[in-house]
């Protein structure tokens, strides 16, 4: 289990690195080179420091005048200065490029996530919670940014510096080097235990933050109900429970991360003392030095060594806090990758929708806007292309459907929707009304049977073309942040203001829009919270009307509109939809009464069909519904 997780983690890191290189194939290597330069240079000064000290020491011992040693000192200091110059240059460049790289990577990643998300099938959105999809963009991207922009470079710098320092140490004295290596093992061990614990608690904290957010969201959205029931105290108790759990987790996480620093800090002092003691012992007892330089142990070796041991400890201190962000960043990255790995909606359709002109009953494709649309149907068998006029004729033949293979929702649905007809679906919740519309626009694909649109198998039609030919007003109205005008224009992006206003008039929305503070230019919040439910529905209808589609699906589109207004809307829609196909779902029977055909559904089967009068005469289910003797829900 943990083996597998480790493997996953490794895969995630590799994939992340691959992705970063794909985003910036030239910039990223540049940055890495600059990091290396900077890291190596910042490790080297101790050599020159040592040299200068050695010079001073000799001068002191031999009583040399400053003038004698000055050239040597100046030479070393100048070399050091130029090294510093190079390091500074690398640092400026690296930081500038890094800022560009980090923000660029974030933007590219966000774009990739979003465009991938837009391509995912409806099933994905139906089976994943909104909050968890949202957290990919907020928490997970944030934790990944932290890791990529700070932890990775820091890790790289530290590793290089540590290696460089180790090499220099070995150059001087292997004995004292061993003390430092021992010390760093202790530090790494502490970091792993304390830092690892802290990281685990931080992940736990994330979980409790989410839980608290869940409670808060529920209680705040239900705020009015809480007031009506005097339930404030109970709500507070529920909140406090989540709040206390969050406190526990946050306290533990911060406790470990807060104490890691002082521990490491002082371990480094202890190492320092050890180095000094060992150095002193070596000098005291004249122990032969073991080193690559062959230098004997002396002050000139011990003093810079002490400096290096501080530098070494400093590096470990800088790396250790990164443990948290790497653990959390990897968890976030894993989730983001899982989303990017979701299979996008497939589209094997090849029949497209084109503008056409009609001469003597023969359709010809054109680039101009003619108001006549045709299906362009290339036949693979013989390479010919035929054109079929878009009329809006939708037929189901023996259609079966199941969301899960083991539970069939629709059985043997057969229906004919001819242009000019209004077809209504009536039935209890769960009878399969909305599911049928989900099949027409191919949000879901059928299991068995056939659906034909203007005689063409809808599987052959490109999804974009198919959906463009359908206007859909959904049960749950969704408006987008933007003006009223923009929201109506969403139906057809090239619609003029006049066309949008005409659509609003048709939908009976014009009168209330006129009364909004800025009329058609009034900004709407995302959820249309400044409009009533009914007004949102009127706008949604206007939005569909401006698209001017040959087939319209209205799924409980007028459920929140009072019956008087509904009749106004109905008249407008009837005018708009003359000669087109309309599918209507409504539990209010007054909405569906004037349909050409009413299908009564029950548990995924059509149990009655006919006009309102025919169905009443049948004295079956519909009659019972109409007379109120039967339960709809």
């Amino acid at each position, binding site marked *: 289990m943990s083996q597998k997780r480790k493997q996953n983690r490794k895969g995630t890191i590799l994939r992340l690195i691959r992705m970063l290189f794909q985003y910036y194939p030239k910039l990223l290597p540049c940055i890495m080179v600059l990091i290396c330069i900077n890291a190596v240079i910042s490790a080297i000064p101790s050599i020159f420091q040592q040299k200068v000290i050695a010079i001073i020491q000799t001068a002191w011992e031999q009583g040399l005048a400053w003038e004698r040693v000055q050239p040597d000192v100046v030479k070393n200091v100048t070399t050091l200065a130029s090294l510093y110059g190079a390091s500074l240059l690398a640092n400026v460049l690296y930081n500038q490029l890094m800022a560009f790289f*980090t923000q660029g990577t974030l933007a590219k990643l966000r774009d990739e996530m979003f465009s991938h998300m837009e391509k995912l099938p409806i099933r994905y959105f139906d089976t994943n919670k909104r909050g968890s999809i949202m957290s990919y963009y907020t928490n997970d991207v944030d934790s990944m940014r932290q890791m990529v922009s700070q932890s990775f470079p820091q890790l790289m710098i530290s590793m290089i510096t540590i290696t460089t320092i180790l090499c220099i140490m070995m150059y001087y004295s292997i004995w004292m080097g061993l003390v430092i290596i021992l010390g760093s093992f202790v530090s790494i061990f502490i970091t792993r235990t304390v830092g690892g614990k802290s990281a685990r608690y931080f992940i736990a904290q994330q979980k409790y933050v989410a839980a608290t957010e869940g409670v*808060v969201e529920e209680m705040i*959205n239900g705020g009015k*109900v809480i007031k009506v*029931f005097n339930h404030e105290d109970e709500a507070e108790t529920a909140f406090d429970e989540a709040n206390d759990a969050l406190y526990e987790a946050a306290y533990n996480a911060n406790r470990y991360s807060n104490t890691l620093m002082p521990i490491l800090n002082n371990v480094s002092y202890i190492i320092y003392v050890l180095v000094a003691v060992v150095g002193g012992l070596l000098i005291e007892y004249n122990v032969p030095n073991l080193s690559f330089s062959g230098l004997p142990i002396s002050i000139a070796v011990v003093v810079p060594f002490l400096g290096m041991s501080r530098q070494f400890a400093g590096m470990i201190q800088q790396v250790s806090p990164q443990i948290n962000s790497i653990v959390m960043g990897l968890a976030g990255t894993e989730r983001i990758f899982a989303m990017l790995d979701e299979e996008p909606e497939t589209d094997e359709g090849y029949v497209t929708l084109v503008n056409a002109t009609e001469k003597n009953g023969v359709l010809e494709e054109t680039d101009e806007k003619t108001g006549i649309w045709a299906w362009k149907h290339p036949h693979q068998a013989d390479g010919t292309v035929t054109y079929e006029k878009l009329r809006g004729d939708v037929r189901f033949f023996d259609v079966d459907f199941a969301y899960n293979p083991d539970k069939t929702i629709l059985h043997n649905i057969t229906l004919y929707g001819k242009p000019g007809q209004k077809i209504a679906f009536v039935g209890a919740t769960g009878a399969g009304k909305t599911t049928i519309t989900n099949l027409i626009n191919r*949000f879901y694909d059928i299991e068995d049977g056939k659906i034909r649109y203007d005689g063409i198998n809808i599987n052959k039609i490109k999804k974009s073309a198919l959906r463009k030919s359908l206007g859909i007003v959904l049960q749950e109205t969704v408006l987008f942040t933007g003006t009223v005008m923009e929201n109506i224009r969403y139906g057809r992006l090239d619609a003029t203001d006049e066309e949008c206003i005409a659509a609003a008039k048709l939908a009976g929305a014009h009168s209330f829009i006129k009364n909004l503070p800025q009329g058609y230019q009034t900004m709407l*919040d995302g959820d249309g919270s400044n409009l009533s439910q*009914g007004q949102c529905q009127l706008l949604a209808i206007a939005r569909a009307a401006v698209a001017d589609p040959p087939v319209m699906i209205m799924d409980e589109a007028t459920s929140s509109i009072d019956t008087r207004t509904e009749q106004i809307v109905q008249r407008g829609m009837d005018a708009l939809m003359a000669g087109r196909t309309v599918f209507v779902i409504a539990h209010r029977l007054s909405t569906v009464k004037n349909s050409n055909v009413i299908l009564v559904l029950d548990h995924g089967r059509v149990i009655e069909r006919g006009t309102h009068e025919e169905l009443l005469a049948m004295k079956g289910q519909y009659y019972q519904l109409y007379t109120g003797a039967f339960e709809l829900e």
Partner: protein
Amino acid sequence: MNTLRQLYQSVREFRKPAFQTPFLVIGEVIFEALIPYTIAMLVNEVKAGGGIDRIMHYAWILLAMSMASLLFGYLAGLTCARSSCGFARNLRHDVFHRIQQFSFANIDRFSSASLVTRLTTDIQNIQMAFMMIIRTAIRAPLNLIFSFAMAFYMGGSMAVIFLAVIPVLGIGLYAVAKVTMPLFKAGFPKYDALNESVEENVKGIRVVKSFVREDYETEKFHNASENIRKIFTKAERILALNSPLMQMCIYSVMLFVLSVGSKRIITTNGAALDIGQFSTLLTYSFQILSSLMMLSMIFVMMTFSAESAQRVCEVLREESTIKNPEHPVMEVADGSIDFDHVSFRYFRDSENPVLDNIDLHIRSGETIGIIGGTGSSKSSLVQLIPRLYDVTDGSVHVSGQDVRNYDLEVLRDSVAMVLQKNVLFSGTIAENIRWGNKDADDEEVKHVCRLACADEFIDKMPEGYNTYIEQGGTNVSGGQKQRLCIARALLKKPKILILDDSTSAVDTRTDALIRKAMKEYIPSTTKIIIAQRTSSVEDADRIIVMDNGTINAIGTSEELLKTNEIYREVYFSQNRQDSDETELSVSEAAA
């Protein structure tokens, strides 16, 4: 300043660790500053070949100091974690508590999304800032002062270099912070907006796909995201100057100490400066500069969280627009309701009143139906009865008392209201029903469910009354949800029951059954029923027709059919004109 005082009230029981922390930090810093000094002595001992005894002497001192520093640091870490997390917990509690006291008008003022952000992200920012204040903000300046003093003590005139470098660094860091701050401030709201647009897309994916707007949305998102990239790249590039600036300062100090220092040592033969001091100077220089860096970070951090603090305090300071009177009436005698020249506006400054001069008298036990078009202020009218909003002019009386004289809890316990936008909470069905009365036994719960015609489908559910309702009630249908909400209200045994379009998703037969049950079970309760369907109000004692914030007509169904144009239109839009079918549906409903 006021903001800080306000927030400080939430520290409460964590005051002790909060005040301990700075002192512990001071202890830690003192030892941290003394350690390099002792190290210098040690180096000199080593250098002077002072023998292992002398070295061990300093080694033990150092060890003791480092242990002391560790202890202080460790304790400071603990108290800091406890007080900052505890403070955040209290603050969350206080904000949530305040929200619970909000009236409907207060709730309307803040969007729910913004309240959630204030309770989570904003308070987290404040927690971070608090942690910084009691720990780092004490540590950094102290460190600076100590290191500075020690540098002068050790290095003497050599330390002058710091006087040259520090202003450069200070000004540089300040300038960077000053320039980047407005950029970040402008950037973050855009970032929030971007996330909101993601949420919108997730929520509205069916609309996006139906209109084939995937590419359009992706393009829109790309533009917004690109905008953010530009702002943040600019800000981060300026911010990225901090690191080289700091490095430059360290390098200058190093070069100065190495060149001038070595000359000093040799020319004075170690009198003005010895090798130990020499390397210690370097250590202090590093500490001084990193404290400065820390200070600039604190500066940036504080500016950010100041915004968050502001937003949280806004909630804490929000006064509820509806408050309990000083000597509240503790009992509602009966269910009579009187509207006396009532006018109502949601906002004081809005032009047209939502309700205009309403005069209405309802006897206890009466059943009143309310009919009216979308936006005719039906809901606004009834919301005044349980004092969800206060009237702008005139007064509303329940049982002869002005509603503003009652104890709020007493009033709302007597006036049960089933809201139009109703919600169930995550928990079992029984738990949800018991919102009406938490002491109700199983029998009572079942009884009200039977009255609301909810028992049938509950019994069919796998776990009956223990079936878990998901957040938002997503696993029950609209009609089932409405019936549960009615049952919940019935359990209160109220004097007045208001149903605001609460049976819209329930079929007419069940609707009739519920009304019949109410008539039998709670005959003395005043019932007010707002409905779209005329069949829901036909058998009411009186029907009020609302139009544009005024009462258009009052009467029985028969009277209104004869005299009122609006009622007739609504009625006939739902019932076929031919009389036999109308009769059929009416008689069936009454049966």
